[in-house]
């Protein structure tokens, strides 16, 4: 299963090589051209069937949040900083792997037996944490790890029950796996499927890819926040697992092109595919960079709901995943130049 392979691959923002290699192997047989740009975006081109003059960009980001080693101390502990948005509270005692050689390590934690009362409710800032790789000196550690190496959570992909899977980096390997499925078909128009880099550190890959391609419309495919555990108050769950693909209306990075949102909704209703709207103004995606490119590009974001993103273990529902693929395929079939004209 490609989602498993992608989830277990390591690709923190700026070192997406392994993810890119896996995706390339999987999509190359289905596309007409494939290349890597100077930032590391994997750009594929698939010629259209010829009925439509449009040029459509589909994107999913390859990178995940993680860590970078910033300093190795005299005792051989690794000091590090987060790459992308990570909640410090979830780090204690977590297993990580470092660098290309996948050196295993543990983020150190003081045993509960020794905790003073006042320490129990305190969050330890990331600059006070270290990764322990079992080295007893700086020299020993430096044989395995160097400054600037990336570290990622060490999480095995697992099926939980019949419909749900657990893994790391579903944000956005879920989107990558959806996109890898979408490129297997040919559409009425030319499709540029782009697997972008550095989304988690500022939508950087998407920005240059969109400039190069200059598409008439763009869709970003994502793994997005589901906050659907029981709550005290009747407030938004952002999205919910099992309720279908999540369509963005507006987030912090962009306002989805309204006719594309309508097209997605109309398509879902016509095809009997469940869908939900993501809570407005939460998060941001590659669409934030894409829609502002050149003279502006009509853009939309469709996402697979995932619980616990940006943590060592996220959870998604495989029916949502399959329905995201179905919705996108059907929507692309219905996309015409007329839909993209505002008055």
């Amino acid at each position: 299963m490609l989602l498993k392979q992608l989830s277990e691959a390591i690709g923190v923002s700026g070192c997406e090589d392994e993810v890119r290699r896996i995706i390339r192997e999987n999509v190359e047989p289905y596309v007409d051209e494939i290349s890597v740009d100077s930032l590391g975006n994997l750009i594929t081109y698939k010629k259209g069937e010829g009925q439509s003059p449009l040029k459509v960009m589909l994107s999913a980001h390859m990178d995940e949040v993680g860590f970078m080693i910033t300093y190795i101390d005299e005792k051989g502990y690794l000091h590090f900083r987060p790459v992308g948005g990570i909640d410090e509270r979830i780090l204690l005692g977590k297993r990580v792997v470092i660098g290309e050689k996948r050196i295993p390590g543990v983020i150190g934690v003081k045993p509960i037996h020794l905790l003073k009362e006042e320490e129990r409710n305190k969050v330890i800032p990331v600059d006070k944490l270290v990764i322990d790789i079992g080295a007893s000196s700086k020299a020993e550690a430096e044989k395995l790890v160097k400054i600037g190496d990336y570290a990622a959570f060490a999480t095995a992909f697992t099926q939980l029950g019949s419909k749900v899977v657990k893994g790391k980096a579903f944000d956005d390997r879920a989107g990558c796996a959806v996109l890898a499925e979408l490129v297997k078909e040919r559409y009425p128009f030319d499709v540029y499927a782009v697997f972008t880099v550095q989304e988690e550190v500022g939508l950087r890959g998407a920005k240059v890819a969109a400039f190069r391609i200059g598409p008439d419309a763009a869709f970003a495919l994502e793994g997005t926040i589901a906050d659907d555990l029981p709550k005290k108050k009747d407030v938004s769950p952002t999205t919910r697992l099992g309720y279908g693909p999540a369509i963005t209306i507006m987030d912090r990075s962009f306002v989805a092109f309204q006719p594309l949102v309508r097209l997605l909704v109309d398509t879902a209703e016509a095809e009997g595919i469940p869908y939900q709207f993501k809570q407005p103004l939460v998060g941001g995606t590659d669409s934030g960079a894409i829609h502002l490119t050149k003279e502006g590009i009509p853009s939309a974001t469709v996402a697979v709901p995932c619980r616990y993103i940006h943590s060592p273990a996220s959870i998604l529902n495989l029916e949502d995943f399959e329905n995201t693929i179905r919705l996108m395929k059907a929507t692309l079939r219905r996309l015409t130049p007329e839909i993209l004209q505002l008055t």
Partner: protein
Amino acid sequence: MIEIIKTLTETYGPSGNEARIRKVIKGFVGKLADEIKVDALGNLIALRKGKGGGKKVMLAAHMDEIGIIVNHIDEKGFLRFSKVGGVSPRTLLGNRVEFENGVIGVIGAEKMEDKEKTPPLDKLFIDVGAEDKEHCPVKIGDIGVFTRPLVVQGERLIAKAFDDRIGCAILIQVMQELDEVPHDVYFVFTVQEEIGLRGAVTSTYGIAPQVAVAIDVTRTGDTPEAPKMAVSLGKGPAIKVKDARMLSHPGVREALIKAAVQAGVPYQLEVLEGGTTDAAAMQLSREGIPAGVVSIPCRYVHTPSEMVDFNDVKNAVKLLKSFLTSPLDW
């Protein structure tokens, strides 16, 4: 001009949903333009061709206004919401919002321990009078705006959304009164200014102007215990020197001052510590574009009751007409 101002300020048009206000403005400027188009983000771009020998000039005012967006509807039919643009919770309690379909909502608050404290956004809700979730006439993603009629009280005008419908009204008035000038003038009514100057980013790229001027509101320092600022209502349009995100191009700034002097209108110089305008995005487009701002002094910006002085508005029209007849060389 009051009729235009009334129509513009009372029309619905939050950031990201400008279709209705765009249609209204298109109705005003359609006949006055040599070419008109709507770009991919929804910016309305109206070109008045010059007689030749001039520059490509872009004047921009944003069509969008601040608002709130529904993010959840609870079982009892109450709405939870997020803000669209710089909305302060202080301005919300007891206020009314209007949705695109005409539904009016009242903003209420949960019980607060400290009654003196302003309830934060997550303690507020909107009541549209719905019986329950099923009968709620509003959906997730619908955007509401403040609802208030224009009030004309002597020379002072009070309305919601003077930011920046007053700029839009000024551009329309300039188009109506403008004689032939050497420059090709692009009158641009931008979208999504309040959520990040986004319409200005794409429209400026598309036009690639040689000179760009934004027309927008600015704060004043003339109310009781106001933060210090040397701009007052009624003392003329303000010519921006700097704000939080831009330094006006000295050439454009001086040309605006000269234009004010030639037109015989009073002006003020503006240094704004917080906030910015479309000009900040315009000046960084492509290889960089000389940009400036004509600001209309406005009290209570981003509340349902913004106040401007009509003389400042009329003088801004004169200033811009004078600016467009000058050679724009520096």
